[in-house]
């Protein structure tokens, strides 16, 4: 089915499902929603899980590929799609399913943005722990599907820890759910785990329930500065072995610090940024435990701005260096140092500069690499850098290339090897999306 045929043949069917004004086939408009250069042939904006199910059943009957979309903040990640028949926006699914401030739980439509949810619960002194880049655009559905997390992962856990329920439509158009709205629940399979980080390839999330947290009344950030990554990581280990329980524990490389807080004296070295919550007494304790290495303390708007910039690192780095790699790595805590050493050597050999941040108590690294000033522009060196990184990773590390220059896209796999058995993952995919409707070609298979 060519793109044009999809337009003319199926638009009326989708209009019958979602209503006239919620289907777009205007090529100019659709061009704005291109994914790695591939424009969708049609966009639909369903208003309910039933409509999502109807769309997916129709797509199954006709073999159409469907790309779920929220705020389009991470949509340029993944392998190149061959074609996008239907772009399905979840942005009209914004209803509050339940909000129980006293219980510290909320259930919300997948199309609600993280900023909207945060603002809603902030009125009751509560706090949603998800901290994606661009929260004003990032939707709850997109956050879950990408499994994205930021610095708060240290203190609050990840989505897999505080997402307590999910409703979704499987690739073959069945409405389903997992979990519920209570904080402890083992009835049925844990569907949340499968959907979180599934990159939209198993089902389209229509709503989800979360644990909320009491918003800290006061926070403070302590920045400790070191001449090398190794020394910074030694300090990280000191913090991890202390009784301290920080909200965030972030490594920031010199280049990253310059990028996020230009002119900051901390840009002179590798820093460990410790964010703590609590009373004056508690914060005093942090100060004394952290000791001499701390060169700077932040609070209030300064502190907010700093962490917001860290959360937006992927965006800021890509804007600063349009021709760059953005690499994300999950790894055992003890491997951070050797991976960074390897990264550094490889960057030097290929004449790249890099900026790295990481929640190094977890551990997760985000690295931006771009060609050093004066280096001869060469797409091959991007490809070599990625393969050089991948070929030396310790066991249990998984590495995704979230962004790369368009010219290299065909030569760089977005995902690379994973520690989890491929055939088992394929069995899950076949059980939920047997016709490979969802995000075809963009993730594992």
């Amino acid at each position, binding site marked *: 089915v060519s793109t044009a045929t999809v337009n003319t043949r199926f638009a009326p069917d989708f209009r019958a499902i979602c209503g006239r004004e919620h289907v777009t086939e205007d090529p100019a408009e659709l061009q704005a929603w291109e994914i790695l250069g591939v424009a969708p042939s049609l966009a639909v904006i369903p208003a309910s899980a039933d409509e999502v199910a109807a769309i997916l059943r129709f797509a199954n009957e006709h073999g159409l590929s469907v790309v779920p979309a929220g705020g389009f903040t991470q949509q340029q990640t993944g392998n190149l799609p061959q074609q996008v028949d239907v772009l399905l926006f979840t942005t009209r699914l914004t209803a509050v399913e*339940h909000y129980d401030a006293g219980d510290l739980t909320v259930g919300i439509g997948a199309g609600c943005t993280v900023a909207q949810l945060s603002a809603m619960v902030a009125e009751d002194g509560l706090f949603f722990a998800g901290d994606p880049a661009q929260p004003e655009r990032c939707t709850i559905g997109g956050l879950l599907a990408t499994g994205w997390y930021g610095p708060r992962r240290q203190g609050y856990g990840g989505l*897999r820890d505080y997402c307590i329920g999910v409703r979704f439509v499987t690739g073959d158009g069945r409405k389903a759910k997992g979990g*519920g709205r209570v904080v402890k629940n083992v009835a049925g399979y844990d569907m949340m785990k*499968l959907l*979180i980080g599934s990159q939209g390839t198993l089902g389209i999330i229509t709503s989800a329930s979360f644990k909320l947290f009491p918003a800290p009344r006061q926070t403070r950030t302590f920045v400790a500065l070191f001449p090398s990554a190794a020394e910074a990581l030694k300090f990280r280990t000191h913090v991890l072995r202390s009784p301290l329980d920080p909200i965030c524990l972030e490594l920031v490389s010199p280049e990253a610090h310059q990028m996020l807080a230009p002119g900051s004296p901390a840009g002179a070295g590798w820093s460990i940024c410790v964010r703590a919550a609590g009373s004056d*007494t508690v914060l005093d304790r942090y100060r004394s435990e952290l000791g001499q290495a701390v060169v700077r303390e932040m609070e209030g708007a300064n502190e907010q701005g700093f962490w917001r910039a860290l959360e937006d690192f992927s965006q800021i780095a890509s804007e600063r260096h349009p021709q760059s790699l953005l690499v994300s790595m999950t790894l055992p805590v003890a491997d951070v140092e050797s991976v960074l050493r390897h990264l550094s050597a490889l960057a030097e050999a290929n004449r790249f500069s890099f900026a790295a941040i990481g929640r190094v108590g977890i551990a997760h690294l985000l690295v931006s690499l771009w060609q050093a000033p004066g280096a001869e522009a060469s797409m091959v060196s991007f490809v070599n850098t990625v393969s050089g990184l991948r070929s030396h990773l310790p066991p249990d590390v998984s590495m995704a290339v979230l962004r790369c220059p368009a010219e290299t896209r065909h030569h760089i796999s977005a995902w690379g090897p994973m520690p989890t058995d491929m055939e088992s993952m394929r069995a899950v995919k076949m059980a939920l999306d047997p016709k490979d409707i969802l995000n075809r070609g963009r993730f594992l298979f």
Partner: protein
Amino acid sequence: LPVNLPGLVDHLRKIAGRDAVLDRPEDLMLYEYDAGIRKSTPGAVVFPQSTEQVSQIMRLATAQNVAVVARGAGTGLSGGSIPQEGGVVIAFSRMNRILEVDVENQRATVQPGVVNLQLSEHVAHLGLYFAPDPSSQKACTIGGNVAENSGGPHTLMHGVTVNHVTGVEVVMPSGEIVHFGGKAAESYGYDMTGFIVGSEGTVGITTAITVKLLRKPEKIATLLGVFESVDDAALTVSAITAAGITPAALEMLDGWTLRTVEAFCHAGYPLDAGAVLLIELEGLREVVEEQAIAVREVCFGQKAREVRRAKDDDERALLWKGRKMAFAALGRVTPSYYTQDGVVPRSQIPAVMRHIGNVAKKYDLVIGNIFHAGDGNLHPLILFDMRNAGQFERVLQASWDILEFCIQCGGSITGEHGVGMEKRDLMPLLFTEEDLDVMVGLRNAFNGAGVLNPQKIFPTPRMCREITGPTQNPVLMQEGL
């Protein structure tokens, strides 16, 4: 299907060794039940000593279409480890080694037969521990914890088993040995590790488990809030949550239960109280001290008669002794009791406690309550005597009534015990036919022939459309741990 049992047993002996298979009726009797009284006799019990042997056993069972169930210590309450009649039990008591303790990464890799508490004891000298702490932690195994996604008192702050497992080695029904995850907290790809935890042995058999080890807190404070009524204590639970304090544990004992417990183990609970709350706070010293003050204020704001704080480890241990010995204490006053495992949103605890009180009156039963109040996880204990047939029917009705109320409140039918055989026919109250169809499809993707732990979690087809009331015996607990 008729099974050539002698042939099967010979095969099993060839795989695991002559002394590693039981098939005499008097031996098999020991493997026909779990912590309840539901019984079903296996045809053979095999004790593998390696993953490779488990794989060969699975291959054999699949080839011969014999049902297999993995078994840890058999402390489960939902029938998860009950075999199919004549099937094979794979007992993990000989795969009980701690394979690795990785201090730098705060991970341990263990075989499934390692006893929960043994892991914490093994790493205690490093200042580390394994957080999930089911009441049966002196006996239950980590393999069983993984299968059931077990909880415990301290999961209020630290989460249940799934929040502490980062990687598993699994033998699939085909016999293939696969790995999910590893030492990293998360990795790219589908979270198969998270999926298999709590799948109640219906997807694969875990043969090695990588878990997080937590650092022991600097300070622990244990408080006992004493209340005139269950209602006041219940309101305090939601008030503590609403005040933004997350205790490490927040347990409630009602008056009847605390008197029964006190008579048995002298934990120091006041005999004339309507209910007590056992509240534990942990973390940085300064944080704990501030929270202890705040908790005390909340308790008194909800009409607490008294709030005591354990002065030292001995006093702390004594307060916990009452909680942990409760099930043993009950054994002295009743021939049998049925432990329920409902969950409600925390703000609904006062309502559900009133409802349980009404249910006890309505069905003329004694119902004690000792439970994980902080996360809304109820454990009503319904007393009965098996010899009294009419009473037994009322126990089932009462239990059904309580769980229905939990669901009406937006809750769940199980918080930590699992669905197993006990609650599979209640699943349609929580899940639509299509929800269940999706889950069954996932099970069948791995375990299509139903060789692995059949008849668990999912309702029998008849029950899918039509709910008529409890028709099956629940798992009945005679002696708790």
